[in-house]
């Protein structure tokens, strides 16, 4: 038997702080796919807060750290389209004026993937061993969709979940209004766009909304809860890994 692929998990700062269960769901799925998973300790954040604020100097400092921490693995897998896109699309552009680092950034980019795209496109996973009795709807997070082409992969795996039905919402490809620093700088506009998204989610009739980015999910779940809507929000990896023992996002144990 071939050596298992050595996969480094880039946890992301939001998953680390807010929802470690997504990280463990990712590890479970990767191990099911036959990967040997490591979690490099010198990782924190991909640098988007600085990059999207125009602060290239600090972005480069963070990016250099990520490039160093994730060298030597077969693949780097990220349970977030926007953080994966940052490494895969933006790091090489960031170092355009530093040829040596640009080369290392391109090398890292070539083996970096969003989690679900990796499972399907690289590991050839076609189904998962999971059960979820209920209807879900899937929000296509912008970076995953437009930068990385994550669209069919989550739907393909969700179709194999026993008992699950997928009710597509209208405008599933329209932004939820999170936008990272955007939600902090322009909270009122962000919140209005989030309201459009929760209306679309309600229109789907689904009991749960799934997405591949925790940032979007914090925004969507926060809006759903404020509106008193009964729809639950979870990261798609939690359903695919059959790990729904933790309360849904924004819900308590009590």
């Amino acid at each position, binding site marked *: 038997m071939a050596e298992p692929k050595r996969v480094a998990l880039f946890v992301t700062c939001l998953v680390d702080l807010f929802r470690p269960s997504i990280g463990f769901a990712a590890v479970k799925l990767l191990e099911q796919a036959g990967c040997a998973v490591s979690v490099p300790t010198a990782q924190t954040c991909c640098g988007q807060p600085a990059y999207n604020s125009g602060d290239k100097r600090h972005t480069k400092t963070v990016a250099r*750290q990520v490039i160093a921490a994730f060298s030597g693995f077969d693949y780097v897998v990220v349970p977030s389209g926007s953080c994966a896109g940052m490494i895969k699309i933006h790091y090489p552009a960031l170092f355009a004026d530093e040829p040596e680092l640009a080369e290392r950034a391109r090398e890292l980019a070539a083996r970096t993937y969003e989690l679900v795209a990796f499972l399907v496109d690289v590991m050839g996973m076609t189904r998962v061993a999971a059960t979820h009795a209920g209807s879900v709807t899937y929000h296509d997070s912008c970076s995953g969709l437009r930068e990385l082409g994550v669209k069919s992969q989550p739907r393909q795996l969700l179709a194999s979940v026993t008992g699950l039905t997928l009710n597509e919402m209208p405008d599933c490809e329209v932004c939820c209004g999170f936008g990272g620093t955007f939600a902090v700088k322009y909270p009122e506009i962000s919140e209005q766009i989030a309201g459009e998204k929760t209306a679309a989610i309600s229109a789907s009739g689904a009991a749960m909304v799934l997405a591949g980015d925790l940032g979007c999910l914090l925004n969507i779940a926060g809006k759903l809860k404020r509106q008193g809507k009964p729809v639950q929000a979870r990261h798609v990896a939690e359903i695919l890994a059959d790990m729904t023992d933790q309360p849904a996002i924004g819900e308590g144990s009590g």
Partner: protein
Amino acid sequence: MRPQSHAFKANARAALGDANLQQAMNNLKTGFVARRAAVVALLPEWENLRDAAIAIKKHTLTHLDFYLEAFERQVVAQGGHVHWCRDAAEANATVLKICRALGAKTVTKGKSMIGEEMAVNDYLAANGVTPVETDLGEYILQIRNEPPSHIIAPAIHLVKEQVAESFRQTHTELDPARPLDDARQMCDEARGILRKSFLAADVGITGANFLIAETGSSIIVTNEGNGDLTQSLPRAHIVLASLEKVVPTLEDASTILRLLARSATGQEFSAYTTISTGPRRAADIDGPGEYHVVLLDNGRSALLGSEFEDMLRCIRCAACLNHCPVYAAIGGHSYGWVYPGPMGAVLTPSLIGISEAGNLPNASTFCGRCEEVCPMKIPLPRMMRHWREREYERHLSPARARWGLAVWAFLVTHPALYRPLAEIAARALGFFGGSRGRFRTLPFAGGWTDGRDMPAPQGRSFHALWAERQRGRA
């Protein structure tokens, strides 16, 4: 118009609370977005067309001086004039000079965003020449004394009841009891009023969608036919055009025209595509006696060779506005100057400066839908980021944000320090989030929690739990 882009946040807040605006903006989704998608799906060669159009524009921009001079030679050969203007002041003075030479009292005007950039209406009115907008949307805005909020649908921020009210207030010579409930009635009323202006005008001003170097022609596209009456009835036709509107040939223009209407309104072609070449000839039965092209730079030549050069490919279709979640939420007036939405977020700082327009490239979620639908594949998010970088480099971004970024950068580049802090934060927030699993208010996050809850962390950091799991396995 005096820029109000610096007041973006206050403008946006007002827009979010404006019930009429919010109702009007709902029409974007069902109208332009759905129709564009349907008509693009019918064209298998769409992507090839985009690439062909981009190649035309790139080639032209690389040889812009050559094609502009070729254009001028052809205009002159047809008996027309080209006026090279560095800025709005020069362009306005040129227009006024032409009007004065003809003793013009009124001018009719087709829709022109360059005219908005120049604020030509205000300038003419202040100098004794009365401008009359003939595009229905622009006419409505003129009588309401408002700027356009969209580059192809200038009055999209209004609902029809507001238009009816403005008509009643302005058209006082008409029966006050007349019905004005539907668009047809209002359209007919405006048509009747404007007919007199068309016949009375001494000069007609239009914009240009294209300038054709090989023939010296200008092209406008409209759906109302107002442009044709504006430019052919008066004694002189003045074309207001920025210099990146030039393309080498009519063939090139027709390639780009196939993209324009589909991207803009979801039509296969606009109702009118009008080609103007020089003034009336001896054998022509009608047409203007003079043909002038006011060629405006206004900061565009400075974009050539810069990281913003791709912006000069823009054909003003407004697909980026129509598909932008931020534009849909706050409307065009919030952006505070002529060009709103994603294209405005890139172009406005280029033309009036990043210190005035700094909010515009920041007020984007970087969702990327604008670039996805742009027929010219202009990398709008990338260029918005370039503006943020320039703003940051020039220390124009808020001190609190810069300080916050410096602290954040220090922490995230010291993982051994960051990790225990993340664990403490996860535990503390998880504890205070308690059994509800979310916060209704949070110190320092008031903006977020004004309109939505903040989900609470689960209570432990991933890295702490992972370390425990690894120790357990060892």
